[in-house]
């Protein structure tokens, strides 16, 4: 993130500390304030630390762990938690659960990255165009968004996924989820742009001869950055859950590959005979999504401290 968030309200801070005082006053940029507010938020920091440990563990772990997620240990099928060779046990074919979980988190991270990437770009673009230009294009785009939102999102995604048999992989699922994930972001960005474009700094930019593209990308989008980041965390949490739901319905991840949703879905089928396959992936998914939500709430509070803590 190299773009500097443009100050919206503040008077320009005096550069340096030229005046001699008993105490030193340090000018903090808006970004520094936001980061400092986030760092002082206990829940958000707990979420961030746990999240970082789990995700880094999932990417580094396979380098040192003795089992690969594809390995099949024929001598110990369906062993429980705490068995000598398999810390978290194995599933019915003899694949190590810990190795599978690490792979699952990796794949889920890939899915989240694809979803947030595709949906984020599309949503920002559509929302900017609708909010900045207004008139018929705004009407057209927003009616389209409203129309798609009159249908249950999960089912629309399932119907589309069912017709594309080649999309039973992490990348395919990510693209399908991303293709439908931008609707709420577009609405959000449009609403922000409607009020932002009336502000003085946009008028000033216009007066100085800035092009529409420059105003959108250099002035408006950086001002909406807070909402975009908060949206991204929410979208990440939803993407993890949506992938799990899609896989459970039979149109998500298939084959040898795995994902967090796949492990949870398979665990549901094994709940009565091999409970560790049910509990461990389910709890891991819950903890990850909780952490993402906590981080998201923390970021929102950091950007807008007056905002009350809501998540609906």
């Amino acid at each position: 993130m190299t773009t500097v968030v443009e100050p919206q309200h503040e008077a320009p801070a005096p550069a340096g500390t030229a005046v001699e005082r008993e105490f030193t006053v340090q000018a903090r940029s808006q970004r520094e304030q936001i980061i400092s507010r986030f760092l002082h938020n206990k829940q958000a920091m707990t979420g961030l630390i746990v999240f970082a440990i789990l995700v880094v563990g999932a990417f580094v772990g396979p380098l040192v762990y003795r089992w690969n997620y594809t390995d099949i240990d024929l001598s110990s099928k369906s062993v429980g938690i705490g068995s000598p060779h398999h810390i978290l046990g194995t599933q019915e074919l003899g694949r190590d659960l810990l190795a599978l979980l690490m792979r699952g988190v990796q794949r889920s991270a890939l899915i989240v990255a694809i979803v947030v990437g595709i949906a984020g770009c599309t949503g920002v673009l559509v929302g900017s165009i609708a909010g900045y230009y207004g008139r018929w294009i705004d009407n057209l785009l927003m009616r389209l968004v409203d129309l798609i939102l009159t249908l249950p999102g999960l089912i629309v995604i399932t119907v589309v996924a069912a017709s594309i048999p080649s999309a039973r992989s992490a990348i395919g699922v990510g693209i399908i989820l991303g293709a439908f994930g931008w609707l709420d972001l577009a609405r959000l960005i449009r609403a922000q742009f409607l009020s932002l474009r009336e502000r003085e700094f946009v008028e000033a930019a216009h007066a100085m001869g800035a092009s529409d593209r420059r105003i959108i990308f250099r002035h408006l989008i950086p001002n909406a950055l807070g909402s975009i980041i908060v949206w991204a965390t929410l979208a990440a949490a939803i993407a993890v859950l949506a992938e799990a739901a899609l896989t459970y319905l039979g149109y998500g991840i298939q084959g040898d590959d795995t994902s967090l949703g796949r492990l949870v879905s398979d665990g549901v089928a094994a709940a009565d005979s091999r409970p560790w396959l049910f509990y461990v992936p389910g709890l891991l998914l819950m903890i990850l999504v909780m952490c993402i939500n906590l981080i998201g709430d923390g970021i929102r509070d950091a950007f807008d401290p007056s905002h009350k803590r809501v998540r609906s």
Partner: protein
Amino acid sequence: MLFFTIRRLISSVLVLLSSSIAVFLLASSTADPTAPFRQRQPLPPPAFFKAFKHRLGLDKPLYLRYWDWITGVLHGNFGKDIAGNAITPTLMERLGVTSRMVLGAMILALVMAIIVGVLTAVRQYKFSDYFFTVLCYMLIALPVFWLGALLKQFVAIEINNLVGHNVLFTLGEESAGISQFGTTSQIWVDRLEHLVLPTISLAALTFAGWSRFQRAAMLDVLGSDFIRLARAKGVPWRRVIFRHGVRNALIPLTTVVAIGVGGILGGAVLTERVFVWHGMGEYLLQNGLGAQDVNVILGWLIVAAFFIVTFNLIADLLYAVLDPRIRLH
């Protein structure tokens, strides 16, 4: 208010109509009924595919197919499935099964959300607030089918053992054959016992989001000037909360509930699968998506769209009744 109602009614019909076009385009462009046959070995001859498509009317132009379908739907006829059976009776029967779960879950989630939302707002930063906050964060982060399986595998068995016989059923929407031999009261008790767990698991997730929202709305209201005035006048605290607080804090919830209907319908498909219900969700997954049957998918989607648009309409009207300022817009 009458003018407002009429305007809203007309716009809802228009939304539903355009939604039917979207649904039709979605289903007809994605579902391919010939797909299951294309995987057969040996591949059926081209003449078979031609005849098959002709029988289903898939060889007609798109606008004609839409016209045929939509005029049928307006007459209450959802067309025929691939096997040639009429969809309407099955769909309506399944709808009856699913709406028991969906309406039950909505009512349960709403009542719980209001109680917990108000409680946690009034007792902000006390133990109960923290308890329900943590609970809600956990519920929001859980896949609905995992929670369903948890209730089914562990809670149901414990309770049934405790009581000594099966009071909570984990499979199906009613005991097999009970509608043939049972009396009316027996049937409904049986259905109720089957309903408990799916309703709870479907309601839990929705409840979590709604109660957070209700808490925020209630905190907003409790911080407003008219509450301070009521307190200053010496109105008892209990009366302030219920008369002045809760009533106003319920207004924004109507919109949130209407928006949540789509999520509940999606969640119902998952819940039905966990509890092996023979409802709309199973119909969609097996007969619709499994066989790539366009008309079944269309039927499901248009019924869902109808529900969502209707709930939005009700929420709009309710909002206007509760908050008269809205009517002016």
